[in-house]
């Protein structure tokens, strides 16, 4: 297997990851948005109440973990793809490394939130 076909193989896995996280997000994000929608019977401002927001985070902790991981992975893969297309760097890690650092930071912040509540 040449290095080109190896890198193509990796990119195809990246796209599968994008599709898989997108499908997860369609369902989980819909639910997340509905928690702040008129269907809750509350005004939008009331859904930002501390006890309501914290109770949601505790009660749906697994769902929010899924949203967090899927959204961050999907978002950062998308950002990497856009930057690679625009910048055409000589080495893909020039884009991949900073995006991976940002991904780790966002996952750390999100995971910390889920642990702290």
């Amino acid at each position, binding site marked *: 297997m040449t290095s080109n076909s190896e890198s193509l193989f990796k990119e195809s896995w990246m*796209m599968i990851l994008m*599709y898989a996280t*997108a*499908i997860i*997000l*369609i369902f989980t*994000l819909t639910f997340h*948005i509905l928690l702040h*929608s*008129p269907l809750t019977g509350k*005004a*939008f*401002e009331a859904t*930002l109440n*501390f006890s309501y*927001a*914290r109770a949601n*985070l505790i009660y749906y902790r697994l769902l929010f973990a899924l949203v*967090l991981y899927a*959204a*961050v992975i999907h*978002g*950062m893969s*998308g*950002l990497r793809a*856009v930057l690679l297309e625009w910048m055409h760097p000589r080495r893909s890690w020039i884009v991949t490394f900073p995006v991976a650092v940002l991904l780790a930071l*966002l996952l750390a*912040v*999100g995971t*910390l*939130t*889920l*642990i*702290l*509540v």
Partner: protein
Amino acid sequence: MKTSQRYRSGLISSLNPRHFNNERWSYTIHRITGAVLVFYLTAHLYETLQIGLGQRSWESALSLLHKLGPLENVGLWIVVGSVLYHGGNGIRLIINEAFGMILGKPTLPVYPYAPTSLGRNQKLAMLTINLVAMLLWIWAGLYLLAGLGLMK
């Protein structure tokens, strides 16, 4: 004309929205809404961290947001619109790219090279996505912007 000049003129010409077809428009809007969502995700994760840090942190974060005035809800409305379009168009892309559906049958490239991928089904899918996203966005606007005193 030098090769680099030809490349540059080609690039500039390709960015001219007058040359965009439906697919190029959907590609461009998908990228723009994606960038909006990545920016929002970063801010939203920081904002949500304040819930974990306690009620005072959360309320001070909210009061900071409230200082934006009507822009806060308008910003959220833009984010909801981005989610709706990006999600809807994303479903179409998954159907196209992952399952190879509604792309039309490949034909020989004959001038003026009309893309077979922009057939009736594809146009119908795009129209449906735009329509549904627009309707839900209006609904979200009525809900979010009601707090601005625009509605009773």
